[in-house]
């Protein structure tokens, strides 16, 4: 059915399933034009498509309503242009974050996002999931570092926005729209990012805190003139102590780290990254909590009640909850609704990023949902792209 369009296609197997839905084919396009040809052919034949990067997060979100073709971006793995003098890189979406980092490091530069499982995770998958890491406190998230994008729409149209200059306000910013779109608007084919020089040096201040200490210390760190790049906490056991780690980057990192240690009032300074830094270790069930930082204490309390492990940032107001043991559907639903009530009262949001259950309300109320539906209807009127995977049945 798809063998006449000039794109490599193989029969799908059990291991290609997305959230339990097994596609019929896996397509392996090698260029933007091939992605376009494939999507056009799928549109003509009414086949639903789910894009895949490294496949590390395909179980996130709801299972697709249908999935005929898994579009594997692995062959689109070329770094197209690294303009070191301009601190800009343009790359195909299938490039792994690891390969990208290695190329950039040769010129003493980096893309200041810090996804750790870089061996498999791709540029496209990182953009489509828009997960934020520790250094978002200083550098912002993927949407803040993306300056240009090329996408392929479900009907095969190839479109770009932005460009390869950092400053650019010509036209709508499709990059923002596709960042975090979870594969539901189209395929991200190429991306251009703003880069940063690799920091001259880095240090972590680490300390163990009680729950009540976290909010005031985090506030002091955030306001500190020593400019930390990230402040993270880790609480593997809800009743146990909380590990704090503060990252300082740049010139005089040691001196500035010592100043921050004074602020914390205890702990040590190390050049060693804490083993848990920025990691998601179990994401069978994964809950994200976002909140204004004044709600830190309320969030820590509310999260303790769920029994889940907590990790994230009290200065950007984003933590992830993981479970070290299996959680049943009803238990999760109850935990999430309890958590949501408390977090929303503190001005925050609770999102279930991953859960193998249909009966859990994954997303809270969103004022912009009707507009989001209209965006989806315009971009994907045939509901071909990852249908049903995103909030509100998008």
């Amino acid at each position, binding site marked *: 059915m798809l063998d006449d369009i000039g794109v490599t296609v193989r029969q799908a197997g059990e291991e290609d399933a997305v959230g339990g839905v097994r596609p019929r084919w896996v397509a392996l396009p090698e260029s933007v034009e091939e992605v376009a040809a494939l999507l056009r052919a799928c549109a003509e034949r009414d086949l639903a498509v789910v894009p895949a990067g490294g496949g590390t997060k395909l179980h996130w979100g709801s299972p697709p309503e249908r999935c005929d073709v898994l579009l594997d971006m692995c062959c689109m793995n070329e770094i197209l242009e690294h303009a070191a003098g301009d601190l800009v890189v343009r790359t195909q979406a299938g490039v792994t974050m690891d390969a990208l980092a290695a190329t950039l490091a040769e010129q003493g530069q980096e893309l200041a996002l810090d996804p750790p499982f870089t061996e498999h995770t791709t540029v496209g998958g990182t953009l489509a999931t828009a997960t934020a890491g520790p250094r978002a406190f200083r550098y912002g998230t993927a949407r803040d570092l993306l300056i240009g994008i090329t996408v392929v729409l479900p009907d095969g149209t190839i479109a770009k926005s932005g460009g390869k200059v950092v400053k650019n*306000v*010509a036209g709508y910013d499709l990059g923002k729209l596709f960042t975090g779109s979870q594969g539901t608007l189209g395929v991200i084919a190429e991306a251009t990012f703003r880069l940063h020089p690799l920091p001259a040096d880095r240090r972590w201040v680490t300390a163990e805190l009680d729950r009540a200490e976290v909010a005031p210390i985090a506030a002091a760190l955030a306001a500190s003139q020593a400019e930390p790049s990230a402040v993270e906490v880790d609480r593997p056991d809800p009743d146990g102590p909380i590990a704090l780690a503060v990252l300082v980057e740049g010139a005089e990192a040691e001196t*500035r780290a010592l100043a921050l240690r004074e602020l914390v009032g205890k702990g040590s300074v190390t050049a060693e990254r804490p083993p848990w830094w920025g990691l998601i270790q179990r994401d069978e069930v994964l809950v994200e909590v976002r909140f204004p930082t004044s709600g830190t204490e309320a969030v820590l309390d509310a999260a303790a009640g769920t029994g889940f492990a907590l990790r994230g940032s009290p200065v950007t107001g984003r933590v992830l909850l993981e479970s070290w043991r299996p959680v049943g559907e009803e238990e999760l639903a109850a935990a999430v609704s309890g958590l949501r009530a408390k977090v929303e009262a503190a001005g925050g949001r609770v999102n279930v990023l991953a859960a193998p259950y249909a009966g859990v309300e994954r997303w809270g109320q969103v004022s912009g949902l009707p507009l989001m539906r209209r965006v989806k209807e315009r971009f994907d009127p045939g509901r071909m792209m990852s249908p049903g995977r995103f909030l509100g049945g998008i």
Partner: protein
Amino acid sequence: MLDTLTAALRSLLPHDSVITDPVRLRTYECDGLTYHRATPGVVVLPDTADQVARVVRLCNDFAVPFVARGSGTGLSGGALPREDGVLIVTSKMRRILEIDLDNRRAVVEPGVTNLAITEAVRDRGHYYAPDPSSQQICSIGGNVAENSGGAHCLKYGFTVNHVEACEIVTPDGDLVTLDRMDPGYDLLGAFIGSEGTLGIATKITVRLSRTPESVVTVLAAFENIEQGGKAVSAIIGAGIVPAAIEMMDALAIEAAEAAVACSYPAGAGAVLIVELDGPEAEVRRQFARLQEICSAAFELRVAADAAERAAIWKGRKSAFAAVGRISPAYIVQDGVVPRTALPGVLAAIDRLSHEHHIRVANVFHAGDGNLHPLVLFDDAEPGAGERAEVVSGAILDLCIEHGGSITGEHGVGVDKSRYMPRMFSEDDLDTMQLVRCAFDPRGLSNPGKVFPTPRLCGEVPGVRKGVHPLVESGKAEQF
């Protein structure tokens, strides 16, 4: 049509909030780009978000277009009114609603000026980072619409990086909040920079930044622009990200000197303003490195205090208006090239200038390749305006040729919509139009801006047909 609408507006808003007097209407006929003019059909000055929403719903009832206007400092004709439409001016919506330093945020109405936010928090060690040169007057709503930058956006980014949430009135008249914390599509990111074509911002939550511990401002004078350009490359190459790197050429310096007597070093072919900020230890080290890099400069001034810093910035910040002192008329251009292409592009601009006998003063954000060539001409001389137009347009072509952009911060507006097809393909523009159609299927929100002859939206399967229920309810309320 407009008469009936005006009557309805009068029953909705206080008397002094609806302007129809032709003389007063004319004060709104243009923004900072004065050669595009139109007298608005009617002007309204709503006081609340709810009033904005009602006005927009009325516009929907009558299928009349509307245009938002903040302070009217825009330089691309974005706030150019429609003779057949309503101009919605936010100048009464000037309240700072909340300052929340615990969360490093402020919640403001759209008419609040950019500088007013910083002034409200400065004594508590904070500021609002994006700082367009027009910051004393321009509104935060206009900043959101244009995704405005400023001299310091090299290190700190643009409006879009500093806005946490916006309450908007959609083109159908619904009040919706777009929040960075929300899951789903990043509609906030799409809205910012949409130049008033996706709705009207009625409440904006901005992020506040901590005033840096240390700021060092340096003025380096070079014999020529090439030396200045080399210094810029060397600074970036050394891994330094200054808060700002600004450059002015001899003609721009001459103008600034005439206008504000900034006393930049005499005989400079180019000056570079470099501002370093951050933790004191880091700034000290970067400054030492900067001195080495600028060894070709024949003079290096370092501001000793805030007054000296202001003196250094004075020449730069007044540059646009200053060229008025050396030329009867001028065009302010705004284009971007990759920073490494700057030397070649500047040389090409010089050639254009000679070829057409039109002087060009160059002022630019050198760190990010954002050029602001000021194209000077005498409007009394026959044909000079046309020649200036040719040079100005050719500069944009240069930007596109070098992989840059036709606008870095002033927006497309009416002025540059015709250049959009040179930078983007038809498919690119049609795809952007999908966003427009999702927000504004009837094309009533600031039509005719940004995009050249946009296509009609048409129906999409599954999309609501006929009159919007809110239009109906708006009607029911009105009549």
